[in-house]
C-alpha cells in the first residue's frame, strides 16, 4: 500500500473537519438547550425523539442514552423514540401520508411538559417537520437537529432550539448530530445535578 493509495482516506476524513469544528461555535446554544431540557425533565416531562432515514436510528440511539445511561450512576430519564413501532409507522404512512407519521403519534403520546426532538440529515424532511409542528402546537419544548438547507424550515415550525450542520453530505451531518445529542445527554445532567439552576430561566 503506497501513500498515494491512502489519499482517499485522508481526504474523506479531512472533509469532515469544518462541520466538526463548527459545533464549538454553537456551544452556548447547546448549553441553553440543555438547561431547557433539564427544566422539563425536572417538571416530570419525558423526551420524545423522531427522525427519518438514517436519523431514525439516531432517534433510537438518543432514547437509549437517556433511559439506560452508559455512565454508571447517572440518573435515567424517560425517553421514547417514535421510529420503533413499524406497524404504526407503516399504517399511518399508508393511510394518512408521511407527514403524519410522527405528528399523529405525538398527539396521542405527548404531555404538555414533554420535550420533542426531531432529526433530519437531508434538509427539510416532511415527516420530521410534521412532527415538529405538532409538538409546538401541543406546547412541547421542541428541538431540531437538521442539515443542509433544513434550518429555515425547522425554524418556521416554531422549534425553540434548531441546530444546523452546514454540509450537503448527509453522512457528515449525521456524525455531527451524534456528537450534538451525546453532548445534550451528558450536559442535561450537569444542570440536573444543580437543582438551583433548574429553578430559574436564563436571560435571552
Amino acid at each position, binding site marked *: 500500500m503506497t501513500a498515494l493509495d491512502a489519499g482517499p482516506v485522508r481526504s*474523506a476524513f479531512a472533509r469532515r473537519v469544518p462541520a466538526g*469544528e463548527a459545533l*464549538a461555535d*454553537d456551544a452556548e446554544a447547546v448549553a441553553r438547550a440543555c*438547561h431547557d431540557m433539564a427544566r422539563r425533565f425536572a417538571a416530570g416531562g419525558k423526551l420524545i425523539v423522531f427522525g427519518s432515514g*438514517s436519523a431514525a436510528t439516531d432517534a433510537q440511539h438518543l432514547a437509549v442514552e437517556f433511559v439506560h445511561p*452508559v*455512565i454508571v450512576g447517572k440518573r435515567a430519564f424517560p425517553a421514547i423514540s417514535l421510529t420503533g413501532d413499524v406497524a404504526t409507522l407503516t399504517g399511518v404512512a399508508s393511510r394518512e401520508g408521511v407527514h403524519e407519521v410522527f405528528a399523529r403519534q405525538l398527539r396521542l403520546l405527548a404531555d404538555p411538559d414533554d420535550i420533542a426532538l426531531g432529526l433530519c440529515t437531508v434538509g427539510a424532511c416532511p415527516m420530521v417537520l410534521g412532527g415538529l409542528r405538532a409538538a409546538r402546537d401541543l406546547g412541547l419544548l421542541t428541538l431540531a437537529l437538521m442539515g443542509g438547507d433544513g434550518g429555515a424550515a425547522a425554524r418556521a415550525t416554531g422549534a425553540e432550539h434548531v441546530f444546523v450542520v452546514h454540509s450537503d453530505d448527509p453522512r457528515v451531518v449525521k456524525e455531527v448530530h451524534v456528537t450534538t445529542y451525546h*453532548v445534550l445527554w451528558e450536559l442535561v445532567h450537569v444542570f440536573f445535578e444543580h437543582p438551583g439552576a433548574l429553578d*430559574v430561566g436564563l436571560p435571552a
Partner: protein
Amino acid sequence: MTVESLYPFLYEGRTDVNAVLAEVSRSTAEKAHEIVALREHIATTYADRLPVCAAALAASFGNGGRLFTFGNGGSSTDAQAVAQLFLDPGPGARALPAIALTTDVAVVTALANDVGFEVVFARQIAAFARPGDIAVGLSTSGGSANVLRAFEEARQRGMVTVGFAGYDGGRMATADAIEHLFVIPSSSVHRIQEAQTTTYHVLWELTQQALG
C-alpha cells in the same frame, strides 16, 4: 469521574445558573474539539487498512454477497445505520443488499427467551449466511459475548468479517474470527461511537469507489 470532580467550583456555594451555563458551554466546545482530534488520529491509524477492507467488501458485493450487521444498545442503532447506508444511500450511489440483524424483534426476543442472549445474532448468521457474505459487528467495549459469537459463526461460514470496537479493542482485539478490525482508542463511549460512525461512513465511501 464524578460531576463534582469535573466541575468543582459549582459545589462551592449557591448555584449560579450563569456559571453553570458557562461551564456547560465550555464543555460542549471541548467535546467538539476532542472528536475532531480523535478522527484525525483514526485517519492516520487506518489510512492503509480501510482501503484493504473496502476492496474486500467490493469483491464480496461483486460476487453477489450480502452484508449483515449487528450490535447491542447504541451499537444496535449503528448496525441499523450501516445496513441502511448500504441499502438506501440516496442519489448518486449504488444501493447494495444489506440487512440489520437487530431490527426483527420477534426473532431477537425468541432467541433470547428460548435459548439465551448469547445466541442472538449468531443463530441469525447461521440461518442467513452464505460463503462470501459480509458480517459487520459493532461493540464499544469489544467484549459483547453475542457479538463475538456471531463473528465466530460468520468466519466458520466463510464470511468476510469486519469489526468496530473501542477502548483497546477488548476481546475483539484478539479474536481470530475478525479479519478487519477498527479500534477507536478513546475512554469515552460517546467519542468512540462518534468516531465509529465516521469510520463506517468512510468505509462505505471507499467501497462505493472500489465498485466504480
